[in-house]
């Protein structure tokens, strides 16, 4: 018996998912899964680095210098983008799960996700990255 539950578990299962035959539903799902796994990997690192505040503050401060270095800021911008997309699309999923009537507007909701993502995300990315050229310039 297969206990998998996601659309990629088997071609048979894929056919049972009306929304996973390509189109925005498929892209939304793939991005959601990739961003979720990415942020999860960061959380493993992050709980350990915060633990170092108590266990080894010097090591924590050293890691903090990596976080705030130019490459670190680029990574954090990518992390923030993954978190923000995952959060917005996750809310879209939850809203449709609990108010199924809204599923009729899933395309509009998907567009709202991207509008908010860029409208708030681009200024956010600018704030995180700004010190790179302020230091360089």
């Amino acid at each position, binding site marked *: 018996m*297969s*206990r*998998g*539950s*996601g659309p*990629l*578990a088997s071609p048979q299962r894929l056919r*049972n*998912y*009306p*929304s996973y035959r390509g189109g*925005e*539903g498929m892209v*939304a*799902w793939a991005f*959601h*899964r990739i961003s*979720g*796994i990415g*942020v*999860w990997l960061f*959380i*493993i690192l992050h*709980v*350990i680095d*915060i*633990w*170092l*505040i*108590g*266990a080894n*503050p010097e090591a*924590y*401060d050293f890691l*903090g210098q990596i*976080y*705030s270095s130019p490459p*670190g*800021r680029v990574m*954090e911008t990518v992390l*923030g983008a993954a*978190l*923000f997309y995952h*959060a917005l*699309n*996750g*809310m*879209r*999923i*939850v809203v*449709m*799960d*609990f108010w*199924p009537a809204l*599923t009729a507007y*899933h395309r509009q909701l*998907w567009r709202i996700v991207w509008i908010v993502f860029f409208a708030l995300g681009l200024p*956010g990315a600018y*704030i995180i990255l700004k*010190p790179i050229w302020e230091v360089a310039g």
Partner: protein
Amino acid sequence: MNAPRYSRGGRPRPVGSAVDLYVWYAVRLSSLALFVLALAHFAMTHFVFDPADQSAEWVRQARWSSVALRALDWGMLMAVLVHGFLGMRTVLQDYVPSRVRSLSLGALYALALILFVLGTQVVVTLPMD
């Protein structure tokens, strides 16, 4: 045909397994908490403050100066462990061959337990003045 009618991006509400159903709800409930806590946390650590300011001593004095702030971070820790690890349970069930599936899930839960212990330890034991 029992294909789910309402799913445009999310996993349909599972039928048949009570555990899967509880997991489905737990992922969604914790996601509501994370939407507020994790986004506010990211905004605090990047837009209000800057990663360059946040030394260990600064976190101890400025961020973890009260029980309430520590409790809030601990609540976020709980939400992210429940959400992230139950989310990864679904991911593993989808991709890991059934031969080694229970082994991989055991490793996943063991990792969650380790992070629970480490994350709780620092928030509880870091000296507060």
